[in-house]
């Protein structure tokens, strides 16, 4: 909503929130300056929560996407749900042609406007209000259990429990990537990301497989110590091989896992890793990661985080159900503050964000994170 | 002239002599004597065509003294029909007072009539189908008993040099047939009824020329009480003569329906209603040929003459042909027309049953008895015996979607009841429809909507085989299609 009145309200609220946040930070001085060239880490000012009472078909939301036309799409445990312009939710289920009620991933083809949906019973295309279903029996889809989907230059990439499939809508041909024809050590693929034409496949116990379709090359990024209990070699590779999700933007690849977070700068070929007890990482149990610019949004079992790797803003829910935000800046003490609103549930499954808002899929509905205005003192990321 | 040309011309003359052609523009007509005519026998045709009635050929300029009798040697004749190639005239005739009426054939240009049927009880109402198949009704019921006789007339089809094959098995007579361009036989019979003593409600039905797919064509839903002589016009209409009330001698009125909507388009064919119309036939070019009765002041009786009526005429003009000595009650053009389509028969001679398939017995244009909202659980079938007795054939369950497929005896009028789970009758169809041996007969509902295609659904009944009933002891005419 960008009406002047609402914007004014948001700005005012954001200023109040930030002031209260800073006032509550006992040892932390106010930011000394804002670096204009640095990208901001957005800060959620407040949450608006939506659940079954608002029309969601299920309290469990697995995936979330705001499409190019501005409509919000939710992949729930019981169908695909869209938030229409009037704010009402409309659900499409199996009776409408969706391949399965559980929608684990949503991707939009920016060229066609079609949505591609990863479900537990195949891949569905949602186009013009109608579904087309691709299954392992009626198409070249590797497996019906599709965990993630991405659209890269018109090709549909589907991460499944039996490899990753790439569907070319132009030729109607499928390519299959698994342990038999790539360096993938096992077929269980959990995530798909792409950057500058390169595909990154998150493999459950195989780290990350990088594939350049233009050259046909493959490269695997594996945990250098090979142990998911301890981290003997930090910042030298994926924190663990057990990948639960991958995301990439502006050359920064993020690996989510249930044992920590990894970041790979594809241009500098450098790694950084985080585990929860030694870093601001909220939880090692990261369901998915969403990348925008050089910032990652982490959906964890204890809340949500946004980070550029140096600064962190973590959102949790305390035992009383109140929202808590904790801000970590390099070289400063963390700042913690209660929020007037809280995430719908601390178990966050997926996040979508842009420069104006963030949406959080949780196991108890969906939360709309409304950002504080940038001029109200957003935390900046290091360049 | 070369020898070759001479031979060809000679052969043509010989052939022409064997098969004289009627002059262009000729009509063939039925004439009955104006006075002194008496029924030559006890049948309905004897009343319609009294002794002395004749079939004649008349040619332009249609002078009364220039007609050519085509039914020479017969004591009475009438109801001429011209073959599709325009070369033959078929008509009903009687060789002697005692003889049965049979169908005769004569060269359109004249000649000696040849009897082409030998039906016990006689034959009447000839019509021509594809492949020179003759369609007619037999036997000829007694006068005044056409629609109430215990031995109703059935339609038969007879290909050249073949025996006649029975086509209809309706409880009441099937008569007045004509063959539509699409190959179906259009005929008149009574609307199904349980009370055999009730006044008949005549209407139009069709069958394929092998007797399959008996279907209501027009008139079942309105007050068309007496109907006869249906004829397909060339402009998409079907004409017929009607009479209000039960008196067949009452004023005959020419009406029509549009074949595009036969149940919703009934109307007058001719704008003038004050004259009794004895026949109406299409003419090439779209005009009509009508035989209309006028009062003959001299003879103090009604007498029919032949009129050419423009399709949109509002008034009748001078008669095309009128002979004061005769009442010209029927006339048709002697002209070649495109033959109707044929029908490749799926009838299996020797089979004793056909298969009835209904898409949804609950689909109907009528409410269920007592507005019972229940869905049908079973279909009960009964047959009407020659004795007039109704005999149960059996009962079969109906699938959940209302579909049913059941094998039933061929060659016997069948009636149907749909029953709810408690056995209450939801809808009742008096015995009327029949199956030919091996026929797969389909309908979309019970008292289904008229002229409707089926909904495109896969009937549950199609997922399993047809229901079988034990009807071995139901006497049928399936194996006795021959007269």
């Amino acid at each position: 909503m960008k009406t002047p009145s609402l914007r004014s309200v948001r700005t005012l609220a954001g200023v109040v929130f930030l002031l209260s946040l800073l006032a509550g930070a006992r040892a932390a001085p106010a930011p000394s300056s804002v670096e204009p060239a640095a990208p901001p880490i957005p800060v959620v000012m407040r949450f608006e929560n939506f659940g079954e009472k608002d029309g969601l078909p299920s309290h469990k939301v697995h995936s979330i996407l705001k499409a190019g036309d501005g409509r919000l799409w939710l992949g729930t445990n019981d169908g695909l749900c869209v938030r229409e312009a009037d704010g009402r939710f409309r659900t499409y289920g199996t009776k409408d042609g969706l391949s399965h009620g559980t929608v684990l991933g949503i991707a939009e083809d920016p060229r066609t406007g079609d949505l591609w949906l990863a479900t537990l019973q195949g891949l569905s295309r949602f186009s013009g209000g109608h579904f087309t279903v691709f299954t392992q029996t009626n198409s070249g889809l590797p497996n019906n259990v599709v965990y993630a989907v991405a659209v890269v230059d018109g090709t549909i990439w589907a991460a499944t429990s039996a490899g990753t499939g790439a569907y070319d809508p132009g030729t109607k041909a499928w390519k299959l990537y698994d342990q038999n024809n790539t360096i993938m050590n096992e077929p269980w693929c959990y995530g798909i990301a792409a950057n500058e034409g390169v595909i990154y496949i998150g493999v459950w116990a195989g780290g990350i497989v990088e594939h350049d379709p233009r050259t046909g090359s493959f490269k695997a990024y594996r945990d250098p110590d090979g142990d998911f209990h301890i981290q003997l070699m930090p910042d030298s590779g994926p924190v663990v091989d057990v990948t639960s999700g991958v995301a990439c933007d502006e050359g920064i690849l993020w690996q989510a896992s249930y044992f920590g977070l990894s970041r790979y700068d594809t241009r500098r070929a450098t790694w950084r890793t985080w585990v929860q007890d030694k870093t601001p990482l909220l939880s090692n149990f990261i369901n998915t990661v969403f990348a925008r610019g050089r910032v990652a949004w982490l959906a964890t079992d204890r809340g949500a985080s946004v980070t550029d790797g140096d600064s962190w803003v973590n959102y949790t829910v305390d035992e009383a159900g109140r929202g808590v935000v904790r801000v970590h800046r390099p070289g400063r003490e963390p700042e913690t503050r209660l929020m007037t609103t809280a995430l719908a549930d601390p178990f966050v499954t997926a996040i979508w964000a842009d420069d104006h808002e963030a949406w959080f899929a949780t196991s108890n509905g969906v939360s709309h994170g409304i950002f504080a205005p940038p001029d109200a003192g957003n935390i900046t990321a290091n360049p | 002239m070369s020898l070759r040309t001479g031979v060809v011309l000679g052969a043509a003359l010989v052939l022409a002599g064997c098969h004289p052609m009627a002059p262009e523009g000729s009509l063939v007509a039925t004439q009955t004597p104006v006075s002194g005519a008496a029924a030559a026998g006890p049948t309905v045709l004897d009343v319609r065509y009294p002794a002395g009635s004749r079939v004649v050929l008349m040619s332009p300029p249609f002078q009364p003294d220039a007609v050519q009798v085509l039914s020479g040697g017969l004591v009475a004749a009438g109801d001429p029909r011209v073959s599709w190639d325009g070369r033959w005239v078929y008509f009903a005739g009687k060789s002697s007072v005692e003889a049965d009426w049979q169908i005769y054939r004569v060269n359109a240009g004249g000649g000696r009539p040849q009897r082409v049927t030998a039906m016990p009880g006689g034959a009447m109402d000839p019509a021509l189908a594809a492949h020179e198949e003759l369609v007619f009704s037999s036997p000829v019921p007694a006068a005044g008993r056409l629609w109430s006789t215990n031995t109703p007339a059935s339609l038969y089809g007879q290909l050249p040099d073949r025996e006649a094959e029975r086509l209809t098995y309706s409880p009441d007579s099937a008569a007045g047939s004509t063959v539509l361009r699409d190959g179906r036989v259009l005929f008149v019979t009574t609307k199904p009824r349980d009370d055999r003593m009730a006044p008949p409600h005549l209407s139009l039905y069709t069958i394929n020329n092998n007797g399959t797919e008996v279907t209501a064509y027009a008139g079942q839903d309105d007050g068309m009480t007496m109907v006869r002589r249906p004829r397909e016009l060339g402009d998409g209409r079907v004409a017929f003569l009607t009479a209000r009330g039960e008196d067949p001698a009452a004023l005959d009125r020419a009406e029509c329906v549009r074949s595009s909507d036969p149940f919703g388009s009934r109307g007058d064919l001719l704008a003038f209603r004050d004259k009794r119309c004895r026949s109406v036939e299409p003419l090439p070019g779209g005009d009509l040929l009508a035989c209309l009765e006028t009062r003959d002041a001299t003879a103090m009786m009604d007498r029919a003459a032949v009129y050419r009526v423009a399709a949109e005429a509002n008034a009748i003009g001078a008669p095309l042909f009128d002979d004061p000595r005769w009442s010209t009650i029927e006339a048709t053009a002697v002209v070649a027309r495109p033959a109707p389509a044929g029908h490749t028969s799926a009838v299996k001679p020797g089979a004793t049953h056909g298969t009835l398939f209904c898409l949804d017995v609950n689909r109907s244009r009528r409410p269920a008895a007592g507005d019972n909202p229940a869905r049908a659980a079973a279909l009960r079938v009964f047959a009407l015996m020659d004795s007039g007795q109704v005999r149960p054939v059996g009962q079969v369950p109906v699938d959940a979607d209302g579909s049913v497929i059941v094998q039933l005896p061929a060659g016997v009028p069948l009636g149907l009841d749909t029953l709810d789970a408690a056995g209450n009758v939801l809808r009742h169809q008096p015995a009327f429809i029949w199956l030919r041996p091996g026929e797969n007969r389909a309908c979309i509902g019970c008292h289904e909507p008229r002229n409707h295609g089926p909904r495109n659904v896969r009937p549950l009944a199609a997922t399993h085989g047809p229901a079988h009933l034990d009807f071995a002891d139901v006497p049928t005419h399936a194996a006795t299609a021959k007269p």
Partner: protein
Amino acid sequence: MSLRKIILVATPVVLLGAGAVLGGHSFLRHHERKRAGNATMPFVSCYHCHFVSTEKLAWAQPRPHHDAPGGLAVSPDGRKLYIALDDKDEIAEADLATLTVTRRAKVAGGPFGLALDATGERLFAACGQHDRVAVLATSDLKEQASIAVGIRPTDIAWCRTPAGERLIVPNSGSDDISVLALQPLRELVRPAAGRDPYAVAVSGDGERVYVANRRAVHEGVVSQPASEVTVLDPVNGHVVDRETLHSAHLAEGITAVPRRDWMLNSMVRVRNLVPITQVKDGWVMSTGLAISERNGEVTQIPLDEANAYFPDPSGVVASPDGHRAYVASGGADVVTVVDLDRLEAWLAQADVAARSDAIDNMALSGRYVIGRIRTGCNPRHLALTPDGRRLLVAERLDDGVLVVDTTSFRPVGRIVLGDGGTDDPIRQGERVFTRARYSFQGQFSCRSCHPDGGVDGLAYDFDGAGVGDNLLDNRSLCGVAGTAPFKWNGKNPTLQFQDGPRFARVLMKTDPIPDPQLDELATFIQHQPPTRTLPWSRIGRPLTPAEERGRRLFFAKQRPDGTPIPLARQCQTCHRPPLYTDRLLRDVGTKGARDSSGVFDTPHLLGIGASAPYLHDGRAATLEELWTTYQVNDSHGVSSYWSKEQLNDLVEYLKTL
């Protein structure tokens, strides 16, 4: 020579000869049974496997080409008519005042669909054979530009959007739609369509583009088929709606109705799920018009009458004043005139139930059909002059364009393009193929189920021994030359047998097609080449690596571990090249619950990628399903050792045949 000597000499010769014959016969039987992997196979001719060459088949031979008119485009000033002549690789320009052809231009690749820009200065042609769009200047009919699009484009529409000019091209062979930008000419996006997108029209306000898809899809062989009207935003090519035409298909024409928010689709209402016990009352199919309103509501109305039918609807146009629509019936050689005011009045009073029931009510059309215009053979594309006073009818099989006065509905002239090819038996056969007069009441033609000779993608339940026990997938007629016998049970040795009395009995319900016409029909069918499934740019190119892997799998004689694959279950044994059929009956484990036999004719595989669904009853929606859902104990080739990738490879190879 004495008799004794003769006997002495002849006896061993006869014995040797008899021995040679018997031995040869025995050897041949052994050879055949071994090679076929069928120990009980009856003796068949050597021609089943040998001496077969696609080069010798009828469809591979040169054939006459005709001036068959395809798409029509009228110049904005109403003076010129542009006519696509796809069979001649030409576009003709005709003067509408003199009704004469003034110019012809060579345009390679089978120009079929035509469109003009608003000024009439540029003519756009969708060239179906070369998968491209050509841009011509109408000033000189010279080609200015060309761009590749999807497979077999059939139509084209031009429109102006706030983002620039657009061309919308339905690609019937690749089931997608090319959205092109002009200045420069480039493809913006190629969204997926339904199946067989065929015709395109721009809405009256220019904000939407509607693409009619000719073939229906269905989720299962006994579920209701539905075809799609794909609705695009021409600005970005995004699909904004996919309207559903339930139980309808073969939509070959679409038009916007000026002054009304309607799109009209000519369509066939198909009733394939109902056993074909009869054909009267449109039991198998009937012709209709689908009215798409802006709110997305679609109403199907009949164009047929209770006892008269006007099948194979094709082109549809609406008058500029929005009062009338004209629909070509290619099977009845008629153009039907619809009074849209009357139609609107009927719609206004019709409740939901009446609208739903309308298409099945064969007596309804009298409410709005006000004329039937007789035309030459196989009217397809239609056009109107800008003033709406002249209707132009492409008489495809008469090589002419009929000009009809829209006030009197009477022809006022004809643009002669060619001689009709009456001396060409293939063309004569095509006339038989397209004419509905050979079915009861003229309800349908061969083309009604075999658009372009291919398949409509449906299974029909033909009247067999009983009711409901003969569900059969429609098989393509393309590429069938040399693949006898025909019919799924392989009982028809010739096409004449296939399409003769038996067909008249079970389907046409009328007299059989007369022998001379039957021969012509067979000639036409035998000259239908296999459906092209590869893009034009790939013709003659080597297989891709995946296709090559699939090819090796197709011809595999052993598993990767060296285990031999039984001869009877190698792909190549039954689907023997070059026709990819051994023309024998096989049991591949697909006997259905009500099938009387599990043995079916081995289909050829030429163009198999375009003939979905598969198996005798059409139960397999895709090629993949043959070896996933419907493979039984490796009966249909040994596939149990295949990986998913190998299956994908095989499918890719099959699509190249």
